[in-house]
């Protein structure tokens, strides 16, 4: 700050105090530019416009008092050092502020220019140190994550080799095996699979920690997903003679979540339940709506195992937590499964928790957000506080030529979706989030604020633009249809929100019917094609 004048933002509402501090600042040897503002709101605006070298802050301002004042300043400019100007009577508060990230405080009335200059110099110095510490910490974290990611990839190559040879032997491709040998190899394969799962968890946890977990929410039927998870885990449950039951609330609306990730969470929790439940016990998966929270679905996985002791309850979601009382010789993995599951749910905006009583089982519960069509539609189908006159639902169906090439088809659908988003008016049309496709057919819906006549222009545009994608031409066919959505009349006495709700209901109904009868459509299409 010797070279460039320090830019001090002085936040002080008392003109006398402000003048005094300004005087002390100017008296000092170092060059200082002072910008003085009397209110917190002015200060926040200043910080928005430019970053000063330092903030001198009075805690009691016309529009903010006490701790709230410095909290707001630190939140706005976390990298700018702050020195508090405290009165004789609020020194305790100033000390508290130092604990919470303020660099220093000076008591008004006995400020000398030397003192002020030194306080500023040290505050800037310390803030700089803190910043470089923070940067170093982040770099270290990044290095750790890169290291873990590198190691887990390198481990995969030899693992793939072991896996391939063990399965070759087990499948009898290298000659017949004696029963004992087959048994031993199966043990090897089991361990290979455990190792594989650990490597996967390691990477997944690294991703979660660095905020790189990929979550692609779609509109999904959670009941179907639960059935899928249960079907996957049934063999493991049967092997241990554990009953696996499902309890589904029949009235669950569609959920807005990443189907692969949600399946991962469900499988993880069911697997956990099976692992900690003795033979002849049971694991129950439930999904239900809760009256007090109409925006989420509540899912739970309960087991009849030995439960979790109260002292361990707060720790089960911690990274690397392992049950110290695992007695049945189950190798439990890295202790990352529940941590990952909770992170995935949190990424969706949901919560996960556990309830348990020693000796009588545990229940892991989590929430996922419901798919709210009305919330999405509101800004699109209303204009100047009123519902638009005409609303049309456009259906874009992509049917693959071959079902098996999932990767390539997924990629083609993604491209189509991106292109489709360019075919609409962003302020009055909306491409709905993709629906979870139970088959290979992908259906996208567009809600368009237009009438049936004009929508044909949009449909032609979609056919031209999306239909011209080489990726789609190579792997599938396109079909675009439209239907009118009934709109409440202008004289409808309900509020706009209520009207949007009713439109959303109509749209949802058509979508659900459409997805349901899709198979029928395809058959018809195919007949036409011949």
């Amino acid at each position, binding site marked *: 700050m010797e070279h460039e004048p320090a830019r001090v933002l002085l936040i002080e509402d008392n003109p006398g105090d402000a003048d005094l501090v300004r005087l002390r600042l100017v008296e000092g040897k170092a060059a200082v530019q002072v910008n003085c503002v009397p209110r917190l709101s002015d200060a926040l605006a200043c910080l928005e416009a430019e970053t000063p070298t330092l903030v001198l802050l009075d805690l009691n301002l016309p529009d903010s008092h006490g701790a709230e004042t410095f909290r707001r300043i630190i939140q706005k400019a976390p990298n700018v050092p702050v020195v508090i100007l405290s009165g004789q009577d609020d020194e305790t508060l100033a000390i508290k502020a130092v604990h919470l990230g303020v660099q220093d405080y000076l008591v008004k009335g006995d400020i000398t220019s030397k003192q002020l200059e030194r306080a500023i110099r040290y505050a800037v110095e310390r803030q700089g140190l803190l910043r470089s510490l923070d940067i170093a910490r982040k770099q270290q974290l990044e290095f750790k994550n890169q290291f873990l990611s590198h190691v887990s990839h390198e481990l995969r190559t030899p693992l793939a080799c072991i896996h391939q040879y063990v399965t070759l032997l087990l499948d009898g491709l290298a000659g017949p095996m004696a029963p004992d040998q087959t048994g031993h190899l199966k043990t090897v394969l089991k361990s290979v699979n455990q190792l594989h799962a650990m490597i996967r968890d390691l990477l997944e946890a690294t991703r979660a920690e660095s905020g790189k977990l990929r979550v692609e929410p779609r509109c999904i039927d959670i009941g179907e997903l639960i059935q899928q998870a249960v079907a996957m885990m049934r063999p493991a449950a049967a092997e241990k003679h554990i009953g696996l039951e499902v309890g589904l609330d029949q009235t669950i609306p569609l959920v807005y979540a990443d189907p692969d990730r949600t399946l991962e969470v469900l499988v993880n929790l069911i697997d956990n339940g099976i692992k900690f439940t003795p033979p002849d016990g049971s694991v129950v998966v439930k999904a239900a709506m809760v009256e007090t929270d109409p925006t989420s679905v509540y899912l739970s996985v309960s087991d009849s195992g030995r439960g979790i002791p109260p002292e361990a309850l707060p720790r089960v979601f911690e990274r690397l937590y392992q049950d110290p009382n695992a007695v049945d010789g189950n190798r439990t993995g890295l202790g990352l499964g529940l941590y990952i599951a909770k992170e995935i749910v949190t990424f969706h905006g949901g919560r996960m928790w556990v309830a348990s009583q020693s000796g009588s089982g545990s229940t892991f519960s989590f929430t996922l957000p419901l798919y709210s069509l009305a919330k999405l539609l509101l800004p699109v189908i209303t204009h100047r506080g009123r519902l638009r006159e005409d609303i049309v639902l456009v259906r874009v169906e992509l049917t693959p030529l071959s079902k098996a090439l999932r990767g390539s088809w997924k*990629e083609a659908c993604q491209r189509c979706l991106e292109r489709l988003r360019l075919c609409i008016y962003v302020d009055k049309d909306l491409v709905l989030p993709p629906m979870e496709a139970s088959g290979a057919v992908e259906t996208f819906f567009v809600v368009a604020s237009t009438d049936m006549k004009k929508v044909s222009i949009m449909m032609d545009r979609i056919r031209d633009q999306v239909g011209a994608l080489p990726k789609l031409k190579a792997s599938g066919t396109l079909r675009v249809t439209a239907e009118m959505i009934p709109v409440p009349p202008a004289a409808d006495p309900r509020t706009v929100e209520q009207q949007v709700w009713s439109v959303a209901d109509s749209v949802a109904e058509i979508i659900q019917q459409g997805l349901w009868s899709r198979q029928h459509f395809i058959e018809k299409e195919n007949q036409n094609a011949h």
Partner: protein
Amino acid sequence: MRTENPSEEQPMNRAKIMVVDDDPDLRQALSLRLQANNFDTVNVGDGYSAIAMAQQEQPHLIILDLGLPAGDGFVVLKNLQQYPALSIIPVIVLTARDPDSTEKRTLESGAVAFFQKPADNEELLGVIRACLQTGCGGGLPS
């Protein structure tokens, strides 16, 4: 393009799969697995040989690792596109690398499917059979 349909071929005239992987042990194991499933195999261990061998052998399908000496998997994919005769060969990528950072790129580079090692044998064979049945060539630029 090919006129014969490999899935309906006589055992004498089997589909030929080229395995490109720099790990000789894994290459060998994969070949054994493929041969046991009635495929002929050709093995190579680097990017340069992959192109040369593809031209010479005209395989019906290629299983390609990404981390390779003398031209990695992406270079191989790019080079395959240069030759009309090779650009129609479906390529399945089988790699230890992270799908998050590579799956999209491989599919964009012309591969028809992506598998991370260790891959499930049945799943891999399923995709191989599907590719050979449809005779789908990847690699159409978009």
